[in-house]
């Protein structure tokens, strides 16, 4: 189990990871997530499939599922393109940070494997304390990437505000 450093050090690590990534993978201009994913595939030598799913209230907003030879990133089809990009960057964050994927069951699998156990039991068994920190790290990486993408967009008040934050 990885030892976790403080949150401030985590921030530095995330920035460093994004910097390293952007040294090797250009953010496409004009911005296109599909093109970015194409380039990320080339850099990692591993294919990434984007998979749309229908989000319903209470559902997770996205997922990353690494397979033996490729990765799948799920994003909600019923939301804005900007939110979709945020989700996909969040999953990319998990990938870059090298997080361990967790055991998550589908509702059918849970009913089959453990019909008497309620969600609380499954969470006790399958969730872990490190997961919250993983989520924080992935979200931080996503935020940094989004800020970089915002710089690509045509000049406007939003971009100036974003740049002011990072000066």
């Amino acid at each position, binding site marked *: 189990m990885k030892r976790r450093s403080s949150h401030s050090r985590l921030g530095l690590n995330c920035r460093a990871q994004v910097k390293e990534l952007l040294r090797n993978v250009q953010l496409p201009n*004009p911005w296109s*997530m599909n093109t970015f994913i194409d380039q990320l595939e080339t850099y990692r030598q591993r294919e990434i499939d984007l998979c749309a799913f229908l989000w319903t209230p209470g*559902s997770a907003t996205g997922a990353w599922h690494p*397979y033996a030879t490729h990765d799948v990133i799920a994003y909600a089809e019923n939301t804005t*393109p900007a939110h979709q990009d945020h989700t996909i960057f969040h999953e990319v964050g998990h990938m870059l940070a090298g997080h361990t994927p967790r055991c998550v*069951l*589908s509702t059918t699998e849970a009913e089959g494997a453990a019909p008497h156990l309620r969600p609380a039991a499954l969470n006790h068994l399958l969730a872990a304390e490190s997961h919250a920190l993983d989520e924080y790290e992935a979200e931080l990486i996503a935020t940094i990437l989004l800020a970089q993408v915002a710089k690509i967009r045509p000049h406007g008040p939003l971009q100036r505000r974003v740049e002011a934050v990072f000066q």
Partner: protein
Amino acid sequence: MPEQDTDGEWTFAAALRHLIARLHPADRGPYSLAEIGDATGLSRQYIHQLVHGRRNAPRYQNVQALADFFGVPPNYFFDAHLAQQVDSEIATLITRREAATSEGETEDYGRSLLAQRVMDLSPHAQQAVSALVDSLRDYEQQPRTTRSRRKPEPHSDAT
């Protein structure tokens, strides 16, 4: 296999001890009596008495609170047969968890990592079961060569 008390009976105390020992995340030890007390509203001292068999007929609402916290049916504590089923389900999930997180796992089975936005997380809001995984499974049924691998491009970029 659920432990039994020294005289071989399936007691409330034995059932509770077993749950505490087994039902906790992999990366930490069992929940402490204080933690269980905080989550259920029961006092640490009361739970201590339950665990050591000093209160053999707890009030039903307290049994309910413990059952709700652990996510087991309340009758788990009273019905040895049901307890055995629950225990084997717990064992199945522990095996599953260990398979999913070990190196060199070859079966793609239940090994997804879900994104959750940080602001949505509360200590117990983590999802070990998700409808999203069903969508992923459906998606994976289609051959990779025929299914879409990219998102639809927006036609205009409105900031």
